[in-house]
């Protein structure tokens, strides 16, 4: 019984050491993670500022889909051209 206990302890110790060494070797050969200095080197996309709610259009609201087509015109001229 005593010999069996010694054999189990030796087996546990050896497999632990082997597992540790295999993990070390695996991680040593894997690709390196991105380092902070690499992140600093990558160019950031330029973002446009969000429009203010009352900027550049007729009613005070802002257009979600492209620029406003509404124009301010003090004296619009209507033309009856026939149909």
């Amino acid at each position, binding site marked *: 019984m005593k010999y069996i206990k010694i054999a189990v302890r030796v087996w546990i110790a050896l497999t632990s050491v082997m597992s540790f060494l295999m993990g070390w070797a695996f991680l040593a050969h894997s690709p390196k993670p991105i380092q902070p200095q690499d992140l600093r080197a990558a160019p950031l996309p330029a973002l446009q500022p969000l429009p203010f709610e009352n900027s550049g259009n007729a009613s005070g609201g802002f257009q979600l889909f492209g620029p*406003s087509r509404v124009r301010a015109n003090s004296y619009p001229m209507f033309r*009856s051209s026939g149909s």
Partner: protein
Amino acid sequence: MYTLSFRAMNTEVLLALEALDGAEAGLYAAENFIQVSERRFSRFLPESELSLLNASAGNWREISLDLLDILLLTRHYHQQTQGLFDPSILPDLKRAGYDQSMERIRGQEIGAPASPRLARPAFAELEIDISARRVRLPRGMELDLGGIAKAWIIQHAAQLLSGYGPACAVSAGGDMRFIGLPAASCWQVEVEDPRNPAQTVAHFQLGPGAVATSSITKRRWQQAGQPRHHIIDPRSGEPARAEWLSATVLAPSLFDAEIYAKVLLIGGAEQAARLPAGLAFLTVDENGALNGLRYEEYFNEFNFARQ
């Protein structure tokens, strides 16, 4: 005053709205209404409500309240004009070569009609069941609601816009509706010279009301070497032999203006003498001469200038 212009109903549309707040929302809502309505009442779109009604001739068909409204207006004006306004001339219009949209017809060589003119059902045979909201076109009848549907769309777009401000206007080609008075005190309207679109024959300063111009020079094409236009005389089934190149009517109601502008081109001076009270008109002939009735004193609380 805020404006929005875009293309719809085969012409340039101009919306104007005077409002302290919400102008943009109102203008875009009116634009959307016009574009959706155009698709409902176009005879060139096979899935439009009008096309489906035409395809159902001979049978009762349930229709929308809006189309019912237009058809009741149509019947009213058909009676008022003793049949000179007749939206059932579509077979004659197609026979004259106007069987597809004007953009496609222009520049095409159109041959003579393949068959002689066939008798078609009278517009008075159209049956309308108001309570059940359904209509039955007699077999062989096809409707072209072009002008009156356009007037209906403009009228309702103007009403929609008027909910956003005290003064607004909707203009589409020859037809326009004004509600309220702008801060500048009146609406400025030019009437185009039908002989030369770059020139102007008259300049009105108007209050609330409507203006409509019909012209035989806008939608023209050649059929077997003959000049044709889209104003059909229902008595002959042929393009009208118009005395004038264009007729402009000023009226409190856009429907009156639209219908009587067309009737003046079809019926000429004889119809001008029968024009309902309260309407004014201005015609231009091929020499550029202006004729008309009451147009100088119409809306007489404002100045009138003639160029």
